[in-house]
Structure formats: structure tokens, C-alpha cells
């Protein structure tokens, strides 16, 4: 069995999640393709009164929607715009059913006949993240759905068809124009909201958002108005207008999909997704710096946190640091919450040339950053506890050395030189001194304090009854005392466990001190299965490691030896 002890272990869930998404979206797209083919077949086979060829446009439009939706969905899984487009595609298929000869399908088609308009408006207002931002937007979208579903009712109840309950052409006419009028009004409100948004958008966004919104608005208006005009025209004119109308609407999704997937809006959309991702549940929330780095496209991005109530700063590991000065290579964006500066984003300025975008992201993540800052502060205070504990251990070791041990040595000397004293007394005191020495070593080994980690571990290896191979790199400078002592205790615990429990014959200990982290690996050739019996020792060590923002992992399959891996972040 394999055991993973504590701390954020890396798994590969994002990959499998990604594959599952691709599969699901693929199935939806395939479903739309097949449904479209079936619908086409229903139009022309076994239909005594086949529709005019523009009916094909329903299916074509649906396919374009679904195709664009699939692309947007896969490119931006966090955005709902792709999902919305795909739903739009199915709405088009549904609306197209009116052209079949099966009464139940015709009924369904007539009920959802105008839903595509509502979805188009929804798309326009929800671009680019797929989420509606304000109350006005939500009300407008709800209204247009209401218009397309409720005001549609008279049109299938009064017109010839499977759902007809009464025949009243005049009333039907009034109902149709009422619906078009109200729908047009809602579309106009939506246009006004788009204009307002355009006005408030940063100039850079406006360049892309402007034409897109304008085009979308025209397409949306063309639907209710165009339908009215089609009703007034006959023959070729109507067909031509239908084609233009369908081309316009289908075009919206294509342009939106492109804009969401690439170009400037990809980022804006992602920043909005960011808000949604960071709002996730506690346990499932991703690291803020990683999410932000991924969103903005800079893996070197770093978050710094200002310690509450102080002028000092810490990094994600809780290590005190100083924000770098902004330069042409490293950019720094302060994060404000209210009037208070709570953190800073340090990014690669050659990669992210648009500081306004980083600032925008900074404001979106302010609340999340504040929450994270408290976590970091907590971690820092735990690290301080570890440091204080170690300082206490060093003091106790020193006091025992200088006080009790010296006194015992003097006693032993006096016993040794005093005439008429038996040698047992002296030997007894010497045993006490040996025990005290072992005790002091357990509290805080002097060689660790004086000579550092490699010397202390080497010394430990000397005491091991088995073959120990020690590999050491990067200790030209010493890690901080807290990291050093934690590294020592975890190494010692792992080595002792290998001998005591795993019945190992050989141990390999690797200590690698890098720029940002100290990595330790203790590998043995013993019986493995450490997960089942890992006791208090390794657990308390794991707590220490975690308090310093590190990771501890134990691989211990039964019969395959044990590998203890520890990574402790260091201030660079």
C-alpha cells in the first residue's frame, strides 16, 4: 500500500477532468450532429408537404451554434459561454421541428419557436464569461425568456397546428405583433445595457467589445423585426431575408467563440472566471497564485502579502520578504482592499505588458487574497512557534551542557581523586553523564547548532548500525535555523524508523539545498508498509514540516522499501 501523509499532495486530477470534459463535449456535439440529420430527414422523407429549402437553415444554424459552442467550451472550460452557445444550438434544432410532419414534434417546435432570440440576447449580455453581472442584465434576460415562452402561447394556440384551440386570425395577428414589439423592446434594453457596458469598459476592451456588441445587437434586433418583415414579404424576398437573418445570428456565435478563445477577451473572460474559481469551496480552492498565474499566463507570477497591522511583507510560504521595485523585467501591482494595501502581485513584465490588466485582476482577487493572507499569517505564526520551540530546545541543551553536565563531571573528578572512594561511585556518575549527553543530543544536537545539517546527519549516520550512503549538495550557505532543525529531526526520524521498523540493510540519504527549497530523501531497502504503522513520530514531524509550509510524502509499498521525501521552502 502507499501512504501519503499530510500537506497538499499533487495529484493529476486536472488531466483526467480535462479528458472527461473533452469526452462529454464531444458526445454533446455528436448528439447535435445526429439530431440535426434526423431532423433533416424528417423534413423531407415521409412528409406530404415538405417545407421550402430555407428550413435547412434551422439545422445549419444549430450546427454552427454547437460547433462554436464546442470550441469555446473546450478552450475556456471555466466560462459558461460555450455551454450557452451549445444550448442555443439545440434551441435552433427545437425551433426547426416545426417544419416536420410529426404532430408532437411540430407542437414542441412551435412552443420553442422564439427561444433562440432569447438565447442570443442572453449570449450578448453574458459575454465573455457566460455569467450575467448585474440585476438589470438578469431582469432583461429573464424578461426576454418570458417573452419568447409566454407571449408565444397565443401564436400556437390560435394558429393552425396540433396545439390550436381556437381560430382567430385577427387575434393571432395582434399576438404576433405584440410579441415582436415586446421582444424588440427587450432587445433595445439589452442594447442600452451593452452601450453602458461599452462606456465603462477600459479603452482597450472597447476596441473589441464595440464592434462585437454592435454586430450582436443588429443580429438580435434582426430576429423579431426580420420575422415581421418576412411575414409581410412573399417568395424570394422572404427567403433571402431568412438567409440573411440566419447568417447574421449564426455569425454572432462564431465571432463570440473566436473572441472568447483568443484575442484580448480571452483574458477578460478568464479574469471573470477567476472570480468564480476563487469562490469555490474551501477544500477545493486552488492556490491563488497558481490560479492567477494560469489566468494571466505567467507561471513566474508571485503573490506577496502584507502582514496585517505591520509594514512587513511575507511570501506565500510565510517567509518575510520585501516587494521588489518595479523594473522593466519585473512588474509589481499593489492589491488594495478598501484603503488598505493588502498584497502585491509580482509578475514578469516582459510577458504581461498590460499593467492595467494585472491591476484589474488584482482588484478581482482582493477579497480572496485577503483570505489567503490570513492563511499565510497563520502559517507564519506556526513557523514562529516552531522557531520559538527550537530556540527553547537550544537554550535547554546549552543549560544542561554548561550547568548539570559540568557539575557532574566535577563530581566525578572529585570522586576519582578523593582517597578512599570506591571507583563504583565515579563510574556511576559517568553513566549519568553519558545518559545526560544522550538526552541533550535528543533535545538539540550540538553538532547541528555548531556545524550545520550535513555534519549532524553524518554524525547520525555514524551511529546507525547499517550502511548509510549520504549525498549532500548546496550547503555552502546554511539554511535558516528552523528549516535546519526541522530537516534534521525529520531525517533522523526517517533513519531511525528504517532501522527500527523496516529492518533495512541500507539507507540512502539525500540532502539538496536549492535556491528555493531544501529537499530531503531518505530511502531504504526494508520491508516497506510504513503507512500502516507510521506512528506519532512521523506525524509530529509532518506537523513541523507543514508549519514551515513544506511537504512530506511517504512512499512505502509493502516489500518495496520506504521512501520519505520532504521539501521545505527556504527564503531565497
Amino acid at each position, binding site marked *: 500500500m502507499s501512504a501519503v501523509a499530510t500537506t497538499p499532495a499533487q495529484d493529476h486530477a486536472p488531466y483526467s477532468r480535462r479528458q472527461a470534459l473533452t469526452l462529454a463535449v464531444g458526445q454533446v456535439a455528436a448528439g447535435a450532429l445526429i439530431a440535426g440529420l434526423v431532423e433533416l430527414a424528417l423534413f423531407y422523407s415521409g412528409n406530404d408537404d415538405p417545407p421550402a429549402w430555407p428550413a435547412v437553415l434551422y439545422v445549419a444554424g444549430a450546427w454552427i451554434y454547437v460547433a462554436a459552442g464546442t470550441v469555446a467550451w473546450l478552450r475556456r472550460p471555466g466560462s459558461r459561454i460555450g455551454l450557452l452557445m451549445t444550448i442555443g444550438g439545440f434551441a435552433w434544432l427545437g425551433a426547426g421541428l416545426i417544419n416536420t410532419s410529426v404532430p408532437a414534434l411540430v407542437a414542441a417546435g412551435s412552443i420553442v419557436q422564439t427561444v433562440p432570440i432569447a438565447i442570443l440576447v442572453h449570449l450578448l449580455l453574458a459575454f465573455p464569461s457566460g455569467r450575467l453581472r448585474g440585476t438589470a442584465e438578469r431582469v432583461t434576460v429573464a424578461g426576454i425568456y418570458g417573452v419568447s415562452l409566454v407571449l408565444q402561447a397565443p401564436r400556437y394556440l390560435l394558429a393552425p397546428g396540433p396545439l390550436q384551440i381556437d381560430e382567430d386570425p385577427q387575434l393571432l395577428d395582434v399576438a404576433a405583433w405584440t410579441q415582436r414589439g415586446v421582444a424588440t423592446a427587450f432587445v433595445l434594453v439589452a442594447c442600452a445595457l451593452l452601450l453602458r457596458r461599452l462606456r465603462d469598459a477600459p479603452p482597450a476592451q472597447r476596441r473589441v467589445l464595440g464592434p462585437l456588441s454592435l454586430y450582436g445587437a443588429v443580429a438580435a434586433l434582426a430576429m423579431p423585426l426580420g420575422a415581421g418583415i418576412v411575414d409581410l414579404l412573399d417568395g424570394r424576398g422572404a427567403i433571402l431575408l431568412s438567409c440573411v437573418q440566419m447568417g447574421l445570428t449564426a455569425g454572432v456565435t462564431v465571432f463570440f467563440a473566436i473572441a472568447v478563445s483568443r484575442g484580448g477577451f480571452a483574458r477578460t473572460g478568464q479574469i471573470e472566471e477567476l472570480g468564480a474559481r476563487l469562490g469555490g469551496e474551501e477544500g477545493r480552492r486552488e492556490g491563488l497564485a497558481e490560479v492567477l498565474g494560469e489566468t494571466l499566463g505567467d507561471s513566474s507570477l508571485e503573490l506577496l502579502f502584507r502582514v496585517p497591522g505591520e509594514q512587513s511583507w511575507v511570501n506565500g510560504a510565510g517567509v518575510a520578504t520585501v516587494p521588489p521595485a518595479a523594473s522593466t523585467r519585473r512588474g509589481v501591482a499593489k492589491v488594495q482592499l478598501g484603503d488598505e494595501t493588502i498584497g502585491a502581485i509580482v509578475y514578469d513584465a516582459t510577458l504581461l505588458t498590460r499593467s492595467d490588466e494585472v491591476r484589474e485582476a488584482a482588484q478581482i482577487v482582493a477579497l480572496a487574497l485577503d483570505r489567503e493572507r490570513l492563511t499565510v499569517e497563520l502559517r507564519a505564526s506556526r513557523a514562529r512557534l516552531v522557531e520559538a520551540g527550537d530556540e527553547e530546545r537550544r537554550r535547554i541543551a546549552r543549560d544542561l551542557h554548561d550547568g548539570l553536565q559540568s557539575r557532574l563531571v566535577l563530581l566525578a573528578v572529585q570522586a576519582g581523586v578523593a582517597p578512599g572512594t570506591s571507583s563504583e561511585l565515579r563510574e556511576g556518575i559517568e553513566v549519568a553523564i553519558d545518559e545526560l549527553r544522550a538526552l541533550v543530543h535528543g533535545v538539540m544536537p550540538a*553538532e547541528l*547548532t*555548531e556545524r550545520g545539517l550535513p555534519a549532524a546527519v553524518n554524525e547520525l549516520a*555514524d*551511529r546507525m548500525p547499517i550502511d548509510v550512503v549520504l549525498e549532500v549538495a548546496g550547503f555552502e550557505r546554511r539554511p535558516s535555523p528552523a528549516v535546519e532543525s526541522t530537516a534534521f529531526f525529520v531525517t533522523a526520524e526517517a533513519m531511525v524508523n528504517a532501522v527500527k521498523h523496516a529492518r533495512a540493510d541500507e539507507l540512502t540519504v539525500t540532502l539538496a539545498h536549492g535556491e528555493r527549497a531544501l529537499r530531503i530523501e531518505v530511502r531504504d531497502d526494508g520491508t516497506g508498509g510504513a503507512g500502516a504503522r507510521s506512528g506519532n513520530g512521523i506525524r509530529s514531524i509532518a506537523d513541523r514540516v507543514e508549519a514551515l509550509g513544506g511537504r512530506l510524502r511517504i512512499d512505502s509499498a509493502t516489500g518495496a522499501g520506504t521512501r520519505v521525501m520532504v521539501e521545505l521552502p527556504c527564503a531565497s
Partner: protein
Amino acid sequence: MRVVIGEDQALMRAGLALVLEQAGFEIVAVAGDAEDLVRKTAAHRPDLLVADIRMPPTHTDDGLRAALELRRRLPGLPVLVLSQYLQRDYAVELLESGEEGVGYLLKQRIADVERFVADLHRIVAGGSVLDREVVAAMVGRYRRGDPIGRLTDRQRAVLEQMAEGRSNAAIAEQLGVSEKAVVRHTSNIYDELGIDRTPEDHRRVLAVVRYLSL
């Protein structure tokens, strides 16, 4: 014999003084920190220096540093360093400063006065004395591919005794074999460790250093 003591703890100083005076040593100076130790030893040129490894100013290995510096400045100065715990690195550094007249013992060893005084005389006479625990730790650390690992048990036992600074006669007595057998063992050990023919004392210490630094 004249001796300088480097020790910052009053209790230990008292204990050392007690033992040394009883053994007939004359304490010509006592130093409480490393700098003071270097100055006083250089001025007095004693027959023996006894120094605590951990001393002011840094309370780490200042006493050892001072002793090593003094051995460079006063070649052949017999030095015994004392410590409350043992570290192999210290033993190796000390032996590398010169093969003769060095000792490294746990502080508590001074209580076994008879043995301690014998060790002092051996150091003054140019021998090397290592604490039995340092030696035991070295023996305990067995590594594959080590020349030390190729030694037979008997050879390892002899080398261990050599590392403690014992003469062939003493080793023979300790192991209950003839002195001739010990000589045969030592010569085999030199061969096994690849130590070339040099004067006997050098070879002994070289073997010990090799033994300790492997």
C-alpha cells in the same frame, strides 16, 4: 610539566586544575576565550595545551580553531582538546593538523584520573589519543567498498586500538596476542589501506586518519 588551560566554565576549570595539579602538572595560565588562549599559549610556550572545543566568542568550535592555529604557530605543541560530545570531523581536523601529540577526549574522561593522566603523558610524548567513543562510532560505520570494510575483524580491532593511540605492546596486551602478531596485523593494514612506507609513527597516524575520514 607546564600546561595552559583553555576553559571558560569555572566548574570545569576547577575539575581540570584538581586533576592536573595532582598529576604534577604546573598550570602556567588559564584562558577564558579563544583569543586569550592563543595569546597566553604563544607567550608561555607550555609543554601541553588542554582546551575546551566550545569557547567564547561564538561558543561553537573556537577552542579547536585556537588549538589548530597554535599548532601551526608552535609546531609540535602537544594539544589535548576536550568536548562534552564527540564529533568525527573534529578528530579528523585535529589529526590532520599534524600526526603527533594530539588528543581528543570527552570531558568526563578526566574523572578516570589514572587513565587520563596516562593519556596526557602519551600526548606529551608525541602519541595520539582518541576517545574510545569516536573510535567506536567509526567502527560502527561500515560501508561497502571501503578499504576499511575489507579489513578482517582482527585487523579492525588492531586499527581501533591504534586509533586510540596505543603502542603495539599495549595492543598485544589488550587483545591477548603476541606483539609480533600485532606488528604483522599493522603491516597488513597498511597494505590494505595503501599506505606507503614511511616512518612507523607517520604510518600509524595516516592509517588512523584514513580510518577516520573514510
